[in-house]
């Protein structure tokens, strides 16, 4: 069951990603990206990380992608141009992709945890545990990220502010 659901959502995820690249209309690509985000959230849920899964839906599918769709609608972006693609990408890209994939899978298999699959419905990542970890073990990373976000907000304010001279 677990494996079946993982394969199902994984297929959705990969299919959405491929569809994202193949679609000519920008808005269809954005919608495929939402499918990718949604299936990633479901895979997090299979891993027992309920909080991360829901936050993935709220932040990525609910906020960031709405912004993307909003901008696409606002600019009324037309169809994409289809280019033939460079020969360098064809010669080195596909073998490179395979090599990278194989190395990645090999590394992951080396570091595979000894535990078996989680039973469905077992949640190991409740919100309070995540919050506790963020404010104790990963406090530095958390605060650094918050400063990064603050700088991004200030950048947005500076860019949109009309000059008063």
């Amino acid at each position: 069951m677990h494996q079946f659901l993982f394969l199902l959502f994984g297929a959705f995820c990969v299919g959405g990603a491929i569809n994202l690249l193949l679609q000519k209309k920008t808005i269809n690509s954005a919608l495929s990206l939402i499918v990718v985000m949604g299936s990633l959230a479901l895979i997090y849920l299979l891993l027992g990380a309920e909080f991360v899964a829901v936050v993935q839906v709220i932040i990525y599918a609910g906020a960031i992608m709405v912004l993307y769709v909003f901008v696409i609608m606002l600019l009324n972006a037309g169809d994409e141009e289809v280019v033939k693609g460079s020969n360098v990408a064809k010669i080195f890209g596909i073998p490179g992709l395979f090599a990278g994939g194989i190395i990645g899978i090999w590394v992951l298999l080396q570091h595979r945890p000894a535990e078996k699959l989680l039973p469905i419905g077992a949640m190991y990542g409740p919100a309070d545990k995540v919050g506790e970890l963020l404010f104790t073990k990963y406090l530095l990373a958390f605060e650094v990220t918050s400063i990064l976000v603050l700088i991004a907000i200030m950048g947005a304010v500076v860019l949109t502010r009309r000059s008063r001279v």
Partner: protein
Amino acid sequence: MSAWTFLIVAVIKIAVTLGVLLTVVAYTVWLERKVVGHIQNRWGPQRVGPFGLLQPLADGIKFLLKEDLTPPYVEKHLYLLAPALALIMALTSIALVPIGPIVHLFGISTPVQITGVIDATGQSSDINVGLLIILGITSLGVYGIALAGWSSNSKYSLLGSLRASAQMMSYEVSLGLSLVGVLILSGTLSLGGIVKGQLGTWFGVIPQWYIFRWQFVAFFIYMMSAFAETNRIPFDLPEAETELVAGYHTEYSAMKFAMFFMAEYANMVTVACLASVMFLGGWSGPPMPFLPAVVQAFLPLVWFSSKIFFFLFLYIWIRGTLPRFRYDQLMAFGWKFLFPLALANVVITAFFVAWRA
């Protein structure tokens, strides 16, 4: 409880909740026309049935029998997907709302909540992150409106849906932040748990609802953001009929239009449910020990539905009273007033809880 009983109970709960929700949606439309009529010194619907009570039925038949028109030059797939998306997202979120405590019927005990179950200790329990799931579903509801406007290929629709997406994105922030104060006090994200935290009274009279525990500012921020989230007057700019014909659903007719209509009213019900669960104690209410046991069993449902009725009436009342915001006023109100106020509420509540601990 065996798997089959669980399945049957779940299906019954879903069917009953959905039926009640759709009936409430239909009769909220009736109530709105009636109340707004009386506010404006008219009678409202009164021809179909006594007091016009069969009007929703007549409207439904009309919507079903009208010609289902698809205008040319629309983006067909997205045009058809949008109303379905809006309605599905609006109807799904009710599944997480705790409507009542555990009921015992035909030897089976289950909480009156679709996602609620009884755990090993005999207590009712539900999804740990229920509140976040509701917020996630409502944030996905924006796509229905955004895609409707874009795919219709019409300037009124596009303007309406641009307004709707910008407005819903902006007010979602203060809506979410206004709930954080309650979450700090309750210490849980499960809606059932939040209701359980509000049982009991002070001096046997005043219920321990979060609105009485210094969250009244948050309650008003929530209500104002909720009005904006559901695109209701005074925040109904996405469908401002004086400027945009009908906003994002200008190009929709017959049942597809009715789906947007139902989605809007179902969203109103969900927002009212969430308000009563977070701030007004959900199904809890003052105890009435003098009533017979059979009536006592129904009391939680009565409390919950009267709270929902209060919020729905408030929606209609305000619609009959207030004019519409201007667009820049809407954005300034959301970002420069509600957002800082919600942040201040979070900080003050956090200090309060830390000081008490």
